[in-house]
């Protein structure tokens, strides 16, 4: 194969990797759901969590149809929803949930930032409207809230982003690992990252990512948001499902459920 053909092949690889393999960082240009539908759904999610008395809960969005997701991964984004007094621009103060997110930066796919938004923002533009809800026990909620109120959560953020970040070390981070860091920081009463990662390794079972190794290797070379250098052996990452299971395993989960696009509660 001559150099021209090699160049052509690599150009194709880059195009394909960027366009579909690691798709997710692209903005969605069109909504599958109407503004009314998303607004209604977001309010249903808030109301269902509020009925449970959840001051803080783990919230996830499906984002994509299940058929487009790798095996074992059901949600594309995870964050913490915090019952808050929210001051509107008008000065009015209302009660509702503010969502504390780690978002990939729009202008730098390998970097992230911490953003507070609201349910309608969280669900806007998704291809598949489904929410995952995991409500920790009141005791754990209380500790998470204390951490957030003391502004200590920013100390748990690593802006180096990888979509398949290894939760057992702090080399890269994604939204789910950040959420797990907050939970573990609340549980262990420390923001010492080394201690948190030792405990994560000891007790948390990450999701193995079922992807072709060659594809992963190519991805780390050609796609900014993918890195495998923080992994040894099988690639593993934190997910909404594995965090929920972790809380359940250690008696720290009050309840968990999903909400479908019609606003109906589904047992997980």
């Amino acid at each position: 194969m001559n150099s021209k053909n090699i160049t052509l092949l690599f150009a194709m690889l880059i195009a394909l990797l960027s366009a579909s393999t690691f798709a997710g960082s692209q903005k969605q240009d069109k909504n599958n759901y109407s503004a009314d539908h998303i607004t209604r759904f977001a309010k249903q999610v808030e109301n269902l969590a509020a009925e449970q008395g959840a001051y803080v809960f783990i919230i996830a969005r499906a984002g994509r149809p299940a058929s487009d997701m790798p095996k074992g991964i059901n949600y594309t984004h995870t964050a913490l929803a915090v019952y808050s007094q929210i001051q509107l621009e008008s000065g009015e103060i209302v009660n509702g949930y503010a969502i504390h997110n780690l978002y990939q930066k729009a202008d730098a796919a390998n970097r992230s930032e911490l953003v507070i938004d609201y349910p309608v923002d969280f669900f806007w533009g998704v291809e598949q409207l489904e929410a995952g809800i995991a409500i920790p026990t009141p005791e754990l909620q209380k500790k998470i809230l204390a951490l957030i109120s003391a502004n200590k959560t920013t100390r748990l953020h690593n802006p180096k982003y990888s979509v398949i970040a290894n939760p057992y070390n702090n080399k890269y981070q994604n939204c789910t690992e950040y959420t797990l860091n907050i939970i573990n920081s609340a549980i262990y009463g420390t923001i010492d990252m080394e201690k948190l990662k030792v405990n994560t390794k000891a007790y948390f079972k990450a999701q193995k990512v079922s992807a072709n190794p060659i594809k992963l290797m190519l991805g780390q070379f050609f796609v900014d948001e993918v890195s495998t250098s923080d992994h040894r052996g099988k690639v593993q990452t934190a997910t909404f499902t594995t965090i929920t299971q972790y809380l359940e395993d250690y008696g720290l989960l009050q309840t968990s459920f999903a909400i479908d696009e019609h606003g109906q509660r589904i047992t997980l």
Partner: protein
Amino acid sequence: MKKGILIVLASLLIAQPVHAATSAQHTSKASKHSALALKEGSKTTVKTVATAVAVPMIISGQLTEAAGKSVKHVGTKLLPLKVTKTTVTADAPPNQAIKKDNKGDCNEQ
């Protein structure tokens, strides 16, 4: 011929999503605000929050507090909470945001 086969093989290798736990904001804020703006006058009210003023409610002992002020007894079990019927969104639409006096911006001298 060989080139064609290689390209097909490469495409097959990377055709499925590796992982979808992305946290990219799937939003085009301008289009979101345009769509939400259309809802003005309908049953649902959409309002924008002021900057950085979502204060978490704190569960403190037997009391729930907001900004240090006790507001509700919760006892040992969490009771249902009330949420506003208003739909809250993070940012003002661009046509409103641009009119704001952005005092305190990081580049302001």
